[in-house]
């Protein structure tokens, strides 16, 4: 059976003044139709780069990306132009991601214009209004400029723009992080509705574990460019295996006063993956690190059914 | 800086070799025979191919030889450096006036944004950048020299002579400096660390001078450097107004006489001193801002030119609230 999206050993390195930045290092996953893969990690873990590389906004350094049974790794510009209809992106910052000098209507119509769709009469206008209805944006805003609208409405414009070409796969790069909680919930619900209606697949990138748990079918945890844990469904929250994921989970302040949980406090801070040393990248902050962790990079292993972890000591730590 | 200077020489050389006038005719007058003219051209090296002249000039330049003046037969270097101190003093004085007046008004204007003081100083600064300095100079002469008789109107022989020229050029510069200072300060005033300083219980004066000003200095210093360059360049005009015997005056005469070596030498010296000032300002940046210092000590040399630090004066960040 072929997956909608299959990413194999994807690597993306950036050249910097101080050496190669391993933004995405050996990432592998699959995504099926109507499925959401949540990618979680802290700043600098390479999650945004991953999304952009999958979309071809960055060239991949190594590895393969298969979409709908076709290898689309670093294909020609013309080919990617075709692929854009299938793959879209929603950005984090609803302020920076909209051209301040284009009206809402123009912004949503731009993809249609580029692909020469709905050229008859006022078809395009009708389509734009349809899209605005779809994302819950009042039609009276069609001639407004982005700066006249609030964050939630702006994010709806971004979503409408992404949906204009009727893609099958959307990369959602922290789509709700910049929004207030009450608006955040509106947008999350909208995205779930759209997924059902339009049969969409999401690569949902966020640093917010609660959000990712709420919306995802599969979850991948990244640390400094590498995957440390990947599991199906809510399995990750039921049996958390990787020490980093454990710490991440325990670090989230819960909106409840009846939990006496033991918080795991990590030592030190995130570094940046420039010319990383061999060994597990999490080792310097890990409470369970052994000398072996500093020598060899752990491979991703299927520890439980459909639950992959990259840790030398995963069995010992979890008593498996 | 050296490649830039070679480039400057090249630019000037190309331009002057395009010039339609003939220095030989200029020197010998209209009665000279063609043979005499040809001989003189040979003497001056004007018949050599362009590249040969350029290489010769650069070679001599490296030995401190800027050529010989066509009119006085003196070494150009000597002529220029006799007059250079005058121009340097004039420019520096003007810059000092510009810096003191401009920075002071800029600070007060920013601190008292939208008060009558701010509104008035902004209008004055706008007037200042709109007034042609040579005309302002003439007006000053009419009022203060011809009318009131306070200061001499021409020459540059002592403090009394310095006042009018320095004020003329300095006040125009002050307008630019004021606009830049104000907008740089306004950028800083809204920063969080200024709030932090106030939250510490620091007094307003200290907040302004030990927190706000140091952070606003980079664009201010940058614009001062640019004003110095403009002052040097503008000396060609302002020295005419006040009859100041500096490089500017020398060059104006040389241009009229097609005295190329002097023109070349003058442009070169002005460009060189402008570049040195810019270099000093680059070094100053590192002392003003530790972040720039660590960029320099980093592996990669950073190519950030001063002009990128200058914000558009008058541009205010979005509303306060």
């Amino acid at each position, binding site marked *: 059976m072929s997956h909608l999206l299959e990413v194999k050993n994807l690597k993306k390195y950036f050249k910097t003044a101080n050496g190669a930045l391993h933004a995405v290092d050996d990432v592998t996953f699959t995504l099926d139709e109507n499925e959401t893969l949540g990618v979680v990690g802290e700043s600098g873990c390479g999650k945004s780069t991953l999304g952009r590389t999958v979309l071809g906004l960055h060239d991949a350094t190594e590895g393969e990306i298969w979409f709908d049974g076709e290898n689309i790794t670093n294909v020609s510009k013309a080919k990617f132009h075709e692929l854009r209809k299938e793959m879209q992106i929603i950005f984090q910052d609803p302020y920076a991601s909209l*051209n301040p000098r284009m009206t809402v209507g123009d912004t949503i119509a731009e993809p249609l214009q580029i692909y020469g769709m709905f050229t008859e009469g006022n078809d395009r206008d009708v389509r734009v209004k349809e899209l605005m209805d779809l994302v819950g944006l009042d039609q009276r805003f069609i*001639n407004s400029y982005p700066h006249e609208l609030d964050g939630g409405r702006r994010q709806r414009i971004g979503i409408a723009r992404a949906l204009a070409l009727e893609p099958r796969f959307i990369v959602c790069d922290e789509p709700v992080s910049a929004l207030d909680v009450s608006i955040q919930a509106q947008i999350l619900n909208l995205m779930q509705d759209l997924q059902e209606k339009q049969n969409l697949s999401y690569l949902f990138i966020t640093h917010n574990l609660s959000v990712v748990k709420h919306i995802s079918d599969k979850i991948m945890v990244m640390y400094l460019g590498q995957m440390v844990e990947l599991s199906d469904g809510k399995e990750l929250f039921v049996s958390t295996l990787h020490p980093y994921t454990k710490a991440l989970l325990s670090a989230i302040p819960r909106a409840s006063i009846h939990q006496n949980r033991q918080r795991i406090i990590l030592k030190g801070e995130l570094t940046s993956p420039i010319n990383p040393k061999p060994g597990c990248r999490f080792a310097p902050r890990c409470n369970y690190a052994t000398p072996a962790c500093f020598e060899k990079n752990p491979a991703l292993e299927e520890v439980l059914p459909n639950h992959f972890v990259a840790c030398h000591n995963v069995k010992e730590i979890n008593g498996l | 800086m050296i490649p830039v200077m070679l480039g400057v020489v090249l630019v*000037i050389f190309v331009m002057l070799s395009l010039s339609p006038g003939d220095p030989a005719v200029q020197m010998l007058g209209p009665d000279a025979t063609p043979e005499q003219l040809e001989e003189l051209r040979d003497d001056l090296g004007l018949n050599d191919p362009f590249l040969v002249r350029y290489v010769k000039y650069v070679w001599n330049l490296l030995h401190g030889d800027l050529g010989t003046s066509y009119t006085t037969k003196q070494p150009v270097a000597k002529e220029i450096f006799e007059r250079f101190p005058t121009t340097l003093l004039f420019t520096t004085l003007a810059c000092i006036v510009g810096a003191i007046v401009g920075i002071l008004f800029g600070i007060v204007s920013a601190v008292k944004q939208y008060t009558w003081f701010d509104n008035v100083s902004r209008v004055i600064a706008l007037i200042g950048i709109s007034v*042609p300095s040579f*005309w*302002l100079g003439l007006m000053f002469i009419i009022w203060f020299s011809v009318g009131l008789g306070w200061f001499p109107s021409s020459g540059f022989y002592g403090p009394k002579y310095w006042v009018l020229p320095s004020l003329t050029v300095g006040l125009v510069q002050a307008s630019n400096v004021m606009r830049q200072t104000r907008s740089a300060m306004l950028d800083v005033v809204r920063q969080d660390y200024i709030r932090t300083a106030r939250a510490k219980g620091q007094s307003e004066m200290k907040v302004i001078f030990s927190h706000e000003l140091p952070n606003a200095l980079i664009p201010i210093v940058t614009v001062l450097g640019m004003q110095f360059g403009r002052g040097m360049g503008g000396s060609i*005009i302002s020295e005419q107004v006040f009859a100041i015997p500096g490089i500017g005056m020398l060059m104006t005469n040389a*241009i009229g006489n097609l005295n190329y070596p002097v023109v070349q030498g003058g442009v070169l010296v002005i460009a060189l001193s402008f570049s040195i000032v810019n270099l000093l300002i680059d070094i100053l940046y590192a002392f003003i801002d530790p972040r720039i210092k660590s960029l320099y000590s980093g592996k990669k040399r950073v190519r950030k030119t001063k002009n990128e630090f200058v914000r558009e004066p008058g541009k205010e960040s979005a509303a306060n609230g």
Partner: protein
Amino acid sequence: MANNTVKAAPKKNSQAKEVWRRFKKNKLAVAGLVIIFILIIAAILAPVIAPYGYDDQDYSATLIRFSKEHLLGTDNLGRDILSRLLYGSRVSLTIGFISVGIGLVIGGLVGAISGYYGGVLDDILMRIVDIIMAIPSIILAISICAALGPGLINTMIAVGISSIPNYARILRSSILSIKQQEFVEAATAIGASDARIIAKHIIPNSLSGLIVQASMGVGRAIISAASMSFVGLGIQPPNPEWGAMLSFGRTYFRDYGYMVLYPGLFIFIAVLSMNLIGDGLRDALDPRLKR
């Protein structure tokens, strides 16, 4: 800041209208615009409205300070100063606008190429700009003028060329910062071509700084040209360019101050107006600024 509910926006407000609406609020800027307008009209209609020709000499009426026939007086050759100033506005304004046009087109092109494509091309172009910028612009303009010889067209070219680095730098740096913005990436993501991104996304957002600089540049160009004629280069007499008139009046200015007062005042007012317009445009062109 911009969280307000927009009641209803049924009509599409064109960008130009929006800018004009904001520009109108700035009274000083509007005043500047009106003055420039008047000067332009005066320049066009000079032969009609000027009481005398610009070179009509009347040796029976030299050095008159004020009279009914000569509102702004006459010079030592008995030429009517007001008429000369009106004719002069033709020359000065033409120089101002055309030389900015030259600088804007070439400098804009250099800046756009440099900023959008970057790399070696950018390095080379910026090196050249560095070299030109090491020479103070007035010296550069004078040198070019010395090379090309005096005259109206050469003056415009000289002033125009000397302003190229300024425009190149401004456009380059604003393109560089806009290129980083997410909406440019968003345009790539929806399949926009390079040409489309430049035309629809980068240029409209980077022009405002350039427009502001250009309007102020007109003022600077007028001053540069006047300075050049003041030292005897550039425009030559009897052409009534304002700077040339100043230069001419200099011989008599100690006793007949009005001969330099009026031309200078005209330069000043024209330049001030352009600067006022520039300041007004700066605020009006930025949609993100406070309403």
